């Protein structure tokens, strides 16, 4: 009986935290609520006899993925004006229609689920069973997952690298247009502008890029 009430408490916490996360204006507050929701789902996993999935949920979802979100929000440096804009976007005219559609789809799901019966098995599915199945009949799925992660790695590296290159290009353009084109970008900006009229500005910018 205790475990059943634990399940309902965890499910309530997950739902409330998710709804709060979806309606916050501040991104960091929403993220903390989302972490609480993921921890509640991990409790549900533990209660239905999947301790390995519960551990993975905490380590990878609440640990790794959410920390990635935190780092990106820190890099974006969103301020108070971002919060005000978010509050303006969250007017009832914006969320009334989507709420209606989501409620309709949830009612359909409810109708389908109402035909499901039977309890969840009390036996735990241990990590050993999961591992044996994962590297036995599902070994191709492991390969597919590794290819997917490799593609994600290459894609995110590409996107981040292009951002870095554009930064450097902007710095070069500023050095070319605002100060003397022939001066070294690392030298003092107040130096003599006509020091070396014969040098190539492209070679200078390339040298600066190589140093950065």
């Amino acid at each position: 009986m205790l475990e059943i009430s634990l399940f309902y408490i965890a499910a309530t916490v997950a739902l409330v935290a998710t709804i709060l996360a979806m309606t916050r204006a501040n991104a960091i507050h929403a993220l903390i609520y989302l972490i609480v929701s993921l921890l509640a789902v991990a409790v549900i996993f533990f209660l239905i006899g999947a301790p390995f999935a519960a551990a993975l949920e905490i380590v990878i979802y609440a640990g790794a993925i959410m920390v990635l979100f935190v780092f990106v929000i820190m890099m974006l440096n969103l301020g108070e004006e971002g919060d005000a804009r978010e509050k303006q976007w969250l007017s009832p005219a914006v969320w009334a229609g989507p709420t209606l559609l989501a409620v309709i789809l949830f009612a359909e799901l409810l109708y389908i689920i109402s035909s499901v019966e039977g309890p969840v098995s009390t036996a735990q599915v241990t990590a050993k069973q999961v591992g044996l199945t994962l590297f036995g009949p599902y070994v191709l799925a492991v390969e597919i997952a590794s290819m997917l992660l490799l593609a994600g790695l290459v894609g995110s590296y590409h996107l981040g690298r292009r951002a870095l290159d554009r930064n450097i290009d902007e710095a070069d353009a500023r050095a070319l247009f605002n100060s003397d084109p022939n001066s070294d970008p690392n030298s003092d900006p107040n130096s003599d502008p006509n020091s070396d009229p014969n040098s190539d500005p492209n070679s200078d910018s390339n040298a600066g890029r190589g140093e950065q």
Partner: protein
Amino acid sequence: MDGLNIPLSHILLVSSLLFSVGMLGLMMRRNIIFILMSLEVMLNSTALAFVAAGAHWGQPDGQIVFMLILSVAAAEVAVGLGLVLQIQRRFKSLDMDNANRMQG
């Protein structure tokens, strides 16, 4: 954990509620960070449904699909947050309505 008798339909109910809330967030937010968070909520709710079904039959297959969903979510978040950085750099805003044209 003996005597545990949670009905499968209740877990699926929680899962579909979480999915609906995630879909609602996906439709009503314009900030791309919140859109990515809604996608995480939706993926997580489907993972909950898979693990519950696996526990119902006493088989480990549900947890294996959970791990596949986990790797999909990790890859998606890595690429999505890279796109967030690019959009912030290009439009100085996280409003998805700014990014409705592909300009090559």
